[in-house]
């Protein structure tokens, strides 16, 4: 994302991309949506199956209460309205479908009319987030593993019946970079709700993109194509850019865009049309007679809301408020985004509550602690708070503080003890003045230039002072002393 992509180029050529994303998210339940088989990734084929998820004759579904709770958490996190809902049957044949219908939600989904706020403050609408069951997995054998050249196929039903929430955005997205931001933020939200682990590479979060273009300024939507097989945020961005360019080229040459499903080919870097259908498939949706309506009353919703922690946007806002608007900057915004994404904001808020400077705590968390996230998450917050305060009060220099933090990440411990062990004692003012005077005396030419106004030589002198004091000097104190001497 280092320059304008084709999306931005299209816009400047008078075409507006219109993008909506459909995200299928696997829920982190212990068991499947309608039966007690384990919801686990990577087990031996066909070992987590039972009459229900195999769709054996006579079997019946029973809804997993935690899956409903997770679906509600997702709805709440996306500011949706939670409604009484029904399950419907979506009827079609495919070998990975044990019943040859999928139990899903159709015109009465559990969550509707929400939105998601991106880190830059813009909002993307969320039309719905509904529950449905996952299918089994088909492997195509022969012909390089691609469906169209295969000789036969093998089916594993371990994944059949795993709970999914399908999240459909409004077509509010206008560029590939915004799409990536949306997907990234959505993933962070899903992880924050505890409902999903958001691992695109394991297939627990699957993104499809609906892409169309229209003349800039027009209100009607152009014909859209659905893009599938996007296995990473990078693929998502690349595929959208390719598709925008493809559609613009078609339209500018006087041709039309055909509504179709297209498959992203990562190696070739292009979307390819799947066999096009003459008409939309008739799924013959009707209410699932084997399941009763789900009516999340106020009491149930309240229970779920209590269990729901703050979302990334809320956590970013908390940090921004702690740092204070007067100290806001792009660098700060980036640090805040990083810290929240890595889950280290707890360290910062605890440090601020313990009297440490929020901005300094933020910087140390974003720049240093982030180097080892797992260790940072295990850091004792009181120790971190003490460390930040030591630096803040000039007991330690910045360099020293970073060294102590690195040691704490490595093997924990108390910052004061670590500082002592490393020989980091505060340099007293008088000894600092002595060292500065010695360094100044040793470099008369540079001193002359500094006195005449070459302020950047502060760095030169500070470096010498640091070397002479084995990094125990406080940079700001050195600068102040140099200034005092010059005056």
């Amino acid at each position, binding site marked *: 994302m280092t320059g304008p992509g084709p999306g931005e180029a299209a816009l400047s050529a008078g075409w507006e991309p219109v993008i909506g994303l459909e995200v299928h998210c696997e829920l982190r*339940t*212990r*068991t499947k949506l309608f*039966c*007690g*088989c*384990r919801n686990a990734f990577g087990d*031996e*084929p*066909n*070992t*987590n*199956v*039972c*009459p229900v998820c*195999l769709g054996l004759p006579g079997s019946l579904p*029973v*809804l*997993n*209460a*935690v*899956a*409903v709770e997770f679906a509600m958490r997702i709805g709440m996190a996306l500011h949706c309205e939670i409604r009484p809902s*029904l399950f419907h049957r979506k009827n*079609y*044949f*495919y*070998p990975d479908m044990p019943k040859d219908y999928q139990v899903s939600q159709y015109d009465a989904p559990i969550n509707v009319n929400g939105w998601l706020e991106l880190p830059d403050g813009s909002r993307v609408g969320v039309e719905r987030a509904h529950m449905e069951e996952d299918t089994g997995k*088909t*492997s*195509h*054998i*022969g012909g390089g593993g691609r*469906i169209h050249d*295969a*000789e*036969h*196929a*093998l*089916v*594993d*039903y371990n994944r059949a019946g795993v709970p999914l929430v399908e999240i459909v955005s409004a077509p509010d997205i206008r560029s590939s970079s915004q799409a990536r931001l949306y997907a990234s933020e959505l993933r962070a939200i899903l992880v924050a709700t505890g409902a999903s682990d958001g691992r695109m590479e394991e297939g627990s979060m699957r993104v499809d993109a609906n892409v169309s273009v229209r003349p800039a300024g027009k209100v009607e939507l152009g014909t859209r194509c659905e893009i599938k097989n996007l296995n990473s945020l990078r693929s998502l961005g690349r595929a959208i850019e390719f598709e925008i360019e493809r559609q613009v080229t078609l339209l500018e040459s006087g041709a039309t865009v055909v509504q179709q*499903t297209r498959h992203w080919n990562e190696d070739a870097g292009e979307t390819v049309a*799947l*066999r096009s*259908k003459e008409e939309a*498939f*008739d*799924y*013959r949706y009707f*209410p699932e*007679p084997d*399941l*009763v*309506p*789900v*009516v*999340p009353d106020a009491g*149930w919703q309240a229970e779920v809301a209590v269990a729901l922690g703050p979302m990334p946007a809320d956590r970013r806002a908390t940090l921004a408020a702690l740092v204070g608007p007067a100290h806001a900057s792009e660098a700060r915004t980036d640090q805040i985004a990083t810290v929240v994404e890595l889950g280290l904001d707890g360290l910062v808020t605890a440090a601020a509550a313990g009297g440490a400077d929020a901005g300094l705590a933020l910087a140390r968390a974003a720049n240093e602690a982030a180097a080892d996230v797992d260790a940072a998450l295990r850091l004792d917050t009181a120790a971190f708070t003490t460390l930040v305060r030591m630096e803040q009060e000039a007991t330690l220099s910045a360099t020293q503080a970073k060294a102590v933090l690195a040691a704490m990440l490595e093997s924990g411990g108390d910052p004061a003890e670590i500082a002592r062990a490393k020989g980091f004692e505060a340099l007293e003012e008088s000894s600092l003045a002595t060292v500065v005077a010695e360094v100044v005396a040793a470099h008369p030419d540079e001193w002359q230039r500094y006195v005449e106004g070459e302020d950047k030589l502060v760095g030169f002198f500070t470096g010498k002072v640091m070397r002479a004091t084995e990094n125990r000097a406080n940079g700001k104190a050195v600068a102040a002393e140099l200034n005092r001497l010059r005056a």
Partner: protein
Amino acid sequence: MEERRLTRQDAAYVARLARIELTEEELDRYADQLATVLAHAAEIAALDTDGVVPTAHPLPLRNVTRPDEPRPSLDRDEVLSEAPAVEDRRFRVPRILGDVP
């Protein structure tokens, strides 16, 4: 509502959707029988049902759920022993011509 007699083309369409292969003779016969049955069943088309809520479930049950507790799965050998074709611990099928609809 428009009442129209079910045609042979309709019968062919639903047979395709329902994945049932029919001979030409069967198609003719079933289309005729279905058209007759449908004509009888469509007698309810004329009833005024404005404002009537459809009955999807005969019972007033709501929120029937189970806890998220694992239960024993089936023994894989027992499952695969009933399968028409097995390869590499999975169900084997002929090549799949079309994409997921």
